[in-house]
């Protein structure tokens, strides 16, 4: 059972009755998971470029990455109305999915921007 959200972002409600059994619409859940992974990749790329331009080195850069991921998770949670249940499988999926792949892209673009700007 799926009902569309009123906002323009295609975030689909994918679960059913609240008390007893949660039934999920598989296709909508896939769409939601795709949305998370796209946003996470995009944010890690942008975050990498920002970290490189600002000249973060060492631990500061990684802390910046965690900060960006945390902001993204908070934004996602706010968009989903602070309840993981109707939209996703579990909280873990919102918070931790795509973390490692995003880290690699972040490091790549961080190195790239840092070199461009500071060692040019």
């Amino acid at each position, binding site marked *: 059972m799926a009902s569309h959200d009123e906002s323009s972002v295609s975030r689909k409600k994918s679960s*059913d*009755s609240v*008390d*007893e*059994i949660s*039934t999920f619409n*598989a296709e909508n859940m896939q769409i939601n998971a*795709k949305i998370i*992974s*796209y946003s996470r*990749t*995009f944010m*890690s*790329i942008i975050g990498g470029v920002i*970290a*490189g331009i600002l000249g*973060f*080195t*060492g*631990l500061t*850069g*990684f802390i910046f990455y965690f900060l960006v991921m945390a902001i993204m998770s908070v934004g996602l949670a706010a968009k989903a109305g602070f309840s993981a249940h109707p939209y996703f499988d579990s909280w873990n999926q919102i918070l931790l999915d795509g973390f490692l*792949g*995003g880290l*690699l*892209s*972040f*490091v*790549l*673009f*961080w*190195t*790239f921007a*840092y*070199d*461009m700007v500071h*060692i*040019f």
Partner: protein
Amino acid sequence: MAEDLVLDTAIRDWVLIPLSVVMVLIGILRYFVSKLMRSSNQVPDPKMVKEGQVIIRARNLRAAANYIPAKSFRARRVYFSNEENGLLYVPKGQAQNAQAQMFSDPNMAMDMMKKNLSMIIPQTLTFAWVNFFFSGFVAAKIPFPLTQRFRSMLQNGIDLSTVDVSYVSSRSWYFLNLFGLRGLFSLILGEENATDDTQRMMQMSGFGFDPTKSLGAEKDSLDIFQHEWALPKFEQRAEAVLKKLVS
């Protein structure tokens, strides 16, 4: 020891950017080539298709079981278990059949080889190109410090041992690109990109042994399944939704 090296601007222009651009282009090229090569496929075996459809039906039953009353679910389950009972006994004689079929079928082996090669060859070629042209100098600086053990891995063209480990050769820039561009490819190429090795391996290994194991697995999971009726409170729920709509 950690003085800042001043690196030539020409390195930026002629090493980092071209290498990244080439890797992105090769990834895009590989995606299109794999799409082209996939279109000329072999005709699927009707028996395998039939078994696949039975599995899909059983899975649908399991997925939507909570929407139908318990009695009808049980009736359907008996139908499947009995039907697959016959199918479950056959695979003992069919197990050898499927494997023999896989090995004696040259088309499938060729396809797997093609997919493997299309993954490995561009990587090998690019790696060789990088090694040949771009070795022997410092290419980039990683913004975070690493221990001394990484020196041999990251700096293998550079023969000075006093240079900071953050200054790496172009080989490590190649590897960094290889892993980091995966995310970028998933953004620009959509879902179907052939740059993820593990996904591809899982797809290929699950294809050949499909009929034998998954029939038994489906039957078992169908047997274990506990039916819970999800709809008894639905009238109240429908009423709540309608009330919200009306008010």
